[in-house]
């Protein structure tokens, strides 16, 4: 389903009809599935179906005068459900988004700051790039940093900004390091040389900034020899799998969950602690809907002794976005000012309704988003949010 990259390279709104994607757009039957499945569709003056209609009539400029695309959280729901298989999230909506942000009278300051921070510091939170690898000192197992030891390595672990800097993300990192070490994986990280991969918001809003980060990280990759890249951030996975390939990236990239599943037979005997949790799993949009990893996270959770998996009402392809994608991570205040319910608040209610003790996630944005949503719902003492890797690591304890 992921679009042929050659087909969209260099395509703009003016030239889209000359591309195969444009031909596909012309086949739209205006069924409205896209707008109906969009989690924020009801708040958009121009939801996806109307955008296509306007494009067909040469009136797409109208959309730029509204904040409709500011409300798109890149959740891939419209695209994955389109009966004509139009690559809405990947192509058309990206192009409309960039024009929207150019025409906006005021870019919401939180988003503006995140973009600037990425430009200046290589991470959205504005932390010093020289502190990116500081978390390594708190790891219980040794972690090799390539700039200090540039020997060829089998697996390059692309840590990404949220895991590297956010205290809860660092919890996940320590768990991953422990698991990789136990599995005997030959791995290393880029440390302070790494910068944000550039997905999530950046690709949609600032293609120039995204390109600068792509160029930077590609240059760093070329310094070292490794066989494959893993990451715990599905957004980075998407960036490498999709945008980086347009710029000639040829490496192999895997999310940490399917990577661990490859080694599940080796891992299982190490999971000796029975956890006794009832767990519900939130499918991340990028990992699940866009990359099709629905079974792997569940298989990994089921491999942990004593875990009972309960599904939420919306799961797998119907998963409900946490609202952090497409720059949504930095638009919480804006959404609130438009009287829109934050999607994490909407989703947490479904998680609470399962009666589970643990909400398991596989994306670094989701931990802070859902922990916050639990507080808003007044449910933070009854349910905890854990990355799957944290649960695996806990099961490895004696």
């Amino acid at each position, binding site marked *: 389903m992921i679009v042929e990259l050659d087909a969209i390279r260099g395509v703009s709104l003016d030239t889209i009809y000359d591309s195969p994607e444009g031909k596909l757009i012309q086949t739209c039957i205006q069924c409205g599935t896209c707008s109906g499945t969009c989690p924020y569709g009801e708040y958009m003056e121009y939801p996806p179906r109307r955008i296509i209609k306007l494009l067909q009539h040469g009136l797409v400029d109208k959309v730029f005068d509204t904040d409709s695309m500011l409300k798109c959280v890149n959740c891939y729901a419209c695209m994955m459900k389109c009966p004509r298989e139009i690559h809405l999230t990947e192509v058309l909506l990206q192009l409309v988004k960039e024009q929207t942000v150019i025409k906006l009278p005021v870019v919401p300051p*939180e988003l503006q700051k995140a973009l600037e921070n990425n430009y200046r510091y290589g991470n959205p*939170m504005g932390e010093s790039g020289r502190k990116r690898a500081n978390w390594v000192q708190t790891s219980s197992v040794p972690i090799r940093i390539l700039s200090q030891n540039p020997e060829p390595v089998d697996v390059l672990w692309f840590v990404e900004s949220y895991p590297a800097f*956010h*205290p*809860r993300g660092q919890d996940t990192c320590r768990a991953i390091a422990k698991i990789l070490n136990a599995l005997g994986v030959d791995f290393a990280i880029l440390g302070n040389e790494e910068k944000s991969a550039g997905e999530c918001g950046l690709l949609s809003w600032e293609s120039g900034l995204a390109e600068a980060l792509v160029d930077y990280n590609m240059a760093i990759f070329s310094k070292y020899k490794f066989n494959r890249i893993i990451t715990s951030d599905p957004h980075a996975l998407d960036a490498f799998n999709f945008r980086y390939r347009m710029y000639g990236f040829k490496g192999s990239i895997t999310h940490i969950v399917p990577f661990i599943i490859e080694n599940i037979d080796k891992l299982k005997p190490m999971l000796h602690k029975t956890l006794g949790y009832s767990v519900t799993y939130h499918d991340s949009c990028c990992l699940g809907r866009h990359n099709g990893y629905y079974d792997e996270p569940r298989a990994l959770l089921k491999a942990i002794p004593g875990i009972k998996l309960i599904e939420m009402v919306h799961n797998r392809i119907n998963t409900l976005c946490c609202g952090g994608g497409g720059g949504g991570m*930095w638009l*919480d*205040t804006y959404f*609130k*000012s438009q009287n829109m319910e934050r999607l994490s608040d909407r989703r947490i209610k479904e998680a609470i309704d399962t009666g589970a003790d643990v909400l398991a996630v596989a994306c670094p944005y989701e931990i*802070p988003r859902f*922990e*916050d949503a639990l*507080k*808003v719902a007044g449910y933070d003492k009854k349910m905890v949010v854990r990355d799957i890797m944290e649960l695996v690591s806990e099961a490895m304890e004696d």
Partner: protein
Amino acid sequence: MNNSILILIEHLKDAIADISFEMLGIGRKIADSFNGSLHAVVLGKDINKFLPELGIADSIFVADDEKLEMASPETIADIIKSIIEIKGISITILGGTNTAAGVGPILSSKLKLPYLNFCKNIRVEGDNIIVTNQLFGGKILSDVKLDGMKGIISVNPGSFPSDAGKASKVVPVVEIDLSQIKIKNYFKKYIEPEAGDVDITKENVLVSVGRGIENADNLSLAEDLIGVLGGAISASRPVIDQGWLPLSRQVGKSGMTVKPKLYFALGISGAPEHVEGMKDSDCIVAINKDPAAPIFNVAHYGVCGDLLEIVPSLTEKLKAKKG
């Protein structure tokens, strides 16, 4: 006029801005230590009313003209340049404000004089003037010696006491000759921003409440504390989400970044998203029931206990102390 100092007086809406008195105060001190003279320059419309307040200067240069009200940096720079050239001024001091921000660089490039920005302190050491200025947003302080005692200094507001610059005395007034000054841009009208809520980024004291406050009625505990301490109330996101306080009071990643002198975190756990917005406060006092709350990692003073008991008694104690 050897070793003379010139101060650009700033005024807005019929009042002299405090920064002007700060500059006059330090200017007087420096001028006296060199047996030099201190001069002020006032531009704008109907400015004669300001002159009696500027008695600390030895003379005042004035240009009373409608077109000089809120003049553009180019115009101000041209006028100051003419004064410096005719009167042989050695040091010009400007305010590090929006009003004067553009003047210094223009003047510096036109007169080939050094320009020192973000100045926090000026002192005299022997025959030299040493200027301390902030670099990298205040992370680094640098001491700079002004070569040949000539230059332009722009001072950060709040760096010097303004009282030291206040004196009412009648001093000589010199009219500035505007015949050579070309005024390309001039001010037309002053538009006030719409009156909004309190700007929490400008408060010296913030009493911030989190979910530990339990309900909207308990906000009065924080208000009472503010009644004694001054400042304003702010909050973490859950409180704003409940609608107990408006969005303009939110501190954190999705709200405001604040740096008050004193920040109270009442019942705020200290999620990274909140800490991002307040960690640079000068003094952080946290009150929280949970001894493991991450807010204690950034707090300078922490009290582990129930804020509903502690805050009222703290307010009482402070009240008693204040008499």
